[in-house]
């Protein structure tokens, strides 16, 4: 029996991003309490942004360190607490995505969140931080327990965030629905985890990886049950069809920035966890597990396909922009799931590059689109699609940026959305999953119609008012960052993919040792 490894002072350095976030949360909470009422809580928001950026800097630092170690021949990852917590490139890259996305979201919401809507504005800002913290823990975990803790941290924080518009009955209803779904999902994941623990006798991912072969041999049923329960749980979390029905309701009821957060960060975190669980448990490693793996991945592929189809089809008749984007999120979750379900063959093992690239593109297009939606709904007081009518006349530049974002969402060149999809498609074709490629392509085509309903409204209809729409500076900045990034990702995907490929390694970062 190995000795219990506890936290050391040394480890605090590796945990720096997480610690920074925790510290900022507490500090901002205290600040919020102590500040007089009359002071605008935007300052808390700026503080939150600062915290996110600081954490991001630390993550960047770690990435740099890990790279340096790899060059020096050391292992390019660190195990804390006997592998419960891992600092590796997989986690770090995702953390950067979480932090960046959250920073953009908070930035966009500065100045657009109405005080009447969210009376406890400060709370809204500093609650984002623990949610991100939870996501980061999920990305870095090497143990079922930490995974679960991260998941719940994210979950509980976001329950509150969804319900933060206390004055609105809708917000409360959304929060309640989210609690029930989230709780049920957690229960399923946990129940599955318990079986996985039972089958392998370990909660450590590396431990599971070592004994999963025997476990399959011993009691295949147990492994099946474990994974299927987890799949159901994750499908609920990710709102994959037919587990998606809650998403539009919750997204609609939540304040727009929170919706954006749920759509991007919460989803990405769940994906991080999926990767950890399905890849780190080394289902690839053994011949015995081939059948299990095949079944599980087929199930995931079917879910992905269903999500793409249902998400797009469901959004077709949608008149509410937020619900529309929620359903588009369902479809995009399906797309993001595709790389995971592809075989790893000697000629195809770029699944993570495919995933993170599309994730990145998705972050920008989604955050940007929600930011525009905030602006529009603030102006027109409506979250309906018709609120976009005539936006081109009222705010031509914002309309132009939105067009770029829409193109990215629809997967039209030359945008990140296009290239991300192309890359994923190439993976599916390489592994000869033509049916998946076909579904992806055809849902994409139908989604043209869907996303272009924004364009129809913005350019081809006239709105009720000709008054110029005022775009708050911070929000405008975010919109433009997102739009430009969306286009840049499409024109020059190479640097990022080069960088990711240089950092990331299947064997070192994915497969726990």
């Amino acid at each position, binding site marked *: 029996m190995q000795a219990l490894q506890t936290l050391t002072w040394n480890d605090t350095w590796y945990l720096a991003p997480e610690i920074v976030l925790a510290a900022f949360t507490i500090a901002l909470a205290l600040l919020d309490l102590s500040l007089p009422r009359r002071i605008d809580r935007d300052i808390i928001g700026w503080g939150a942004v600062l915290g996110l950026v600081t954490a991001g800097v630390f993550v960047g630092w770690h990435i740099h360190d890990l790279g340096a170690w790899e060059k020096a021949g050391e292992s390019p990852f660190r195990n804390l607490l006997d592998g419960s917590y891992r600092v590796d490139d997989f986690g770090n890259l995702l953390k950067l995505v979480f932090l960046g996305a959250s920073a953009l979201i908070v930035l966009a919401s500065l100045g657009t969140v109405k005080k009447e809507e969210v009376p406890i504005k400060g709370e809204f800002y500093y609650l984002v931080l623990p949610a991100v913290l939870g996501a980061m823990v999920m990305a870095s975990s090497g143990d079922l327990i930490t995974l679960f803790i991260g998941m719940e941290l994210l979950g509980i924080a976001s329950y509150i965030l969804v319900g933060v518009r206390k004055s609105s009955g809708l917000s409360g209803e959304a929060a309640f629905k989210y609690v029930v779904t989230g709780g049920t999902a957690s229960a399923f994941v946990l129940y599955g985890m318990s079986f996985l623990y039972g089958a392998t006798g370990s909660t450590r991912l590396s431990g599971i990886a070592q004994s999963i072969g025997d476990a399959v041999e011993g009691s295949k049923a147990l492994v099946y049950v474990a994974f299927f329960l987890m799949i159901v749980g994750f*499908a609920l979390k990710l709102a994959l069809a037919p*587990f998606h029905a*809650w998403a539009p309701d919750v997204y609609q009821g939540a304040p727009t920035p929170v919706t954006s957060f749920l759509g991007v960060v919460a989803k990405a975190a769940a994906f991080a966890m999926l990767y950890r669980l399905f890849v780190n448990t080394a289902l690839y490693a053994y011949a015995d597990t081939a059948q299990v793996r095949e*079944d599980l991945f087929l*199930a995931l592929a*079917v879910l992905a396909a269903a999500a793409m189809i*249902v998400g797009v089809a469901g959004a*077709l*008749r949608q008149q509410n922009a937020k619900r529309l984007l929620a359903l588009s999120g369902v479809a995009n979750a399906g797309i993001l799931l595709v790389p995971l379900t592809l075989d790893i063959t000697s000629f195809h093992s770029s699944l993570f590059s495919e995933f993170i690239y599309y994730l990145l593109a998705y972050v920008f297009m989604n955050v940007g689109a929600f930011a525009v939606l905030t602006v529009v709904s603030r102006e027109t007081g409506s979250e309906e699609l018709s609120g976009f009518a005539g936006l081109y006349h009222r705010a031509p530049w914002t309309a132009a940026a939105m067009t770029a974002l829409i193109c990215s969402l629809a997967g039209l060149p030359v945008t990140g959305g296009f290239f991300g999809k192309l890359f994923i498609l190439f993976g599916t074709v390489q592994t000869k999953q033509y049916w998946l490629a076909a579904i992806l392509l055809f849902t994409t085509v139908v989604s043209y119609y869907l996303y272009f309903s924004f364009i129809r409204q913005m350019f081809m209809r006239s709105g009720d008012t000709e008054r110029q729409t005022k775009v708050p500076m911070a929000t405008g900045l975010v919109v433009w960052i997102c739009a430009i990034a969306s286009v840049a990702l499409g024109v020059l995907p190479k640097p990022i993919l080069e960088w990711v490929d240089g950092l990331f390694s299947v064997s070192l970062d994915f497969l726990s040792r």
Partner: protein
Amino acid sequence: MDITFAQYAWFAPLFPLAAFAILTAMGRGLGRAGAWVATAASLLSFLLSLLIAIERLGGTAEDYTGRIEWLRAGSIMLHAGYEVTNLTSLMLVIVTFVALLVNLYSIGYMKDDERISVFFGYVALFTASMLGLVLADNLLTLYICWELVGVCSFLLIGFWFRKPEARAAAKKAFIVTRIGDLGLLLAILLLYWNMPNHALDFTSLYNVFHSQSDTLSASLTTLIALLIFLGAVGKSGQFPLHVWLPDAMEGPTPISALIHAATMVAAGVYLVVRTFDIFEASQAALAAVAIVGAFTAIFAAVIGLAQNDIKRVLAYSTVSQLGYMMLALGAGSTAAATFHLFTHAFFKALLFLAAGSVIHAIHTQDIREMGGLGRRMKITAWTFGIGALALSGIPPFSGFWSKDAVLAAALDESPWLFAVGVVAAFFTALYMARLFFLVFFGAPRGDAKAYAHAKKSPAVMTVPLVILAVLALLAGFVETPWNEWLGSWLSGEEEEGGINGLVVIASVGASLLGLYLGWLFYGRRSSSGNPAAEKASGLRRILERKFYVDELYELAFVRPLAALGRGLDAFDRVVVDGAVRLAGRSVQAAGKLNTRLLNGQIQAYALCALLGAVLLILAIAGRRFW
């Protein structure tokens, strides 16, 4: 003999083409000056043609061919070229001469029309294309010009575009002749892929078909010949594609003279002559040509009996005469056909121009409203009379000699064809007599005021009439039974002459009988209209309705096609587009269903999810057993 002029033959079409370009570019600004530009161009062409013809009269000049590469698609080379032979030089002279006269005539005839420059532009373009057609050294070039003359014909028929009849006639002319054109096109395609070296020029055609080599199978040869003949049928208004030609009389009369009497309609005959080597290789094709020709000759002549429009009578006469030419060709005699083409060009142009003169004077085309015009328009009457006699085949007018040649050829082939020819000659004389007497004799029946205003046509119109009348009188002497100059010049071989008494007696007898009967019915008692016709009113109605061919076509083709169009249109809307809409709707409906499921009940969502999970697991597990 040196070839000097032949190598410049390609200038002949170029002059009128340039005139066309000038007229089109300058537009209406040119006004009547445009008429002189076009006339000058046609004069130049005529002079050149004359020089070329004179050069060749000696009979020793080599055929001259010039060509350029028109289009190359890899190994496929298509040429555009011209060829000067005796036949083409003869045709050049005919075309340019008639064109020149018609141009002159039109200066007077069209002088009050505001679109006179457009008219002359079209005529110039027509002349250019017709000369191109005549000169073409290969079938493709010929085909191109063939279509162009068709278009000019179409444009000129519809020249008075405000008249709905003109519009309909133009459309009909184009579409009906196009049926024939497509036959020619298919023939060209067949020849292209079956001829050695993909050659389409007439020299190669001669070499291949004349040598009786079995390069092409007999059935293929027949098919090609029939397809070419289809083209000729369309262009030359042979039955059953004759329907457009009488309607084409909606165009200005000079056009009827130039295009629909003298030149373009004869292009079908010319085509068969040029490709006669192919026809000769197929007995069946020759028989078809002969039968169609003979039938058309008598069929159109009979219809001509009952028409009341002066130009329509002439039009049916043209159809009938073209039938004669085809008959001659079917009987194997290109010389007779060409000869008849030659003479017909003059006397029919004459007849039309004279008719135009009449119409110009009294502004009606209905012969029932004419009468007694001979006294007011002496020159017109005289020249018309000469033309009528020539057409009727009365010696020594040119028509006699050529009709004689045709009938002699027909007799050689089959007595039946000969008999049909003779009967047709009888009818020809009859309707010409009717026409002549009704128009120029008797008392005026129509609007007295118009009659009073009828005056002599200006010199620019009468001079061409006189020239043509002289030619109608004399042109026949180039080929008489004693002196077969034309035939031998064309074929390059000495031909044995000889007079066939039976032919002469039969044809002259039939014609004289026709004239006499015509005088009997219309000349003697002209004031009372046409008593003979009243007696047989049932037959007359059939004739007036032209044997109901138009109605039959309407019923057999136009309406079914329109119905098919509507049917397919409905199909396109309902089935094809319907399928698209259905697909769109079903996707939308799926979306709607999905939306309906989102009823706000969280427990329903959960149930849905649970069902989904169960289904998924069942599917994955079931896959193992399935």
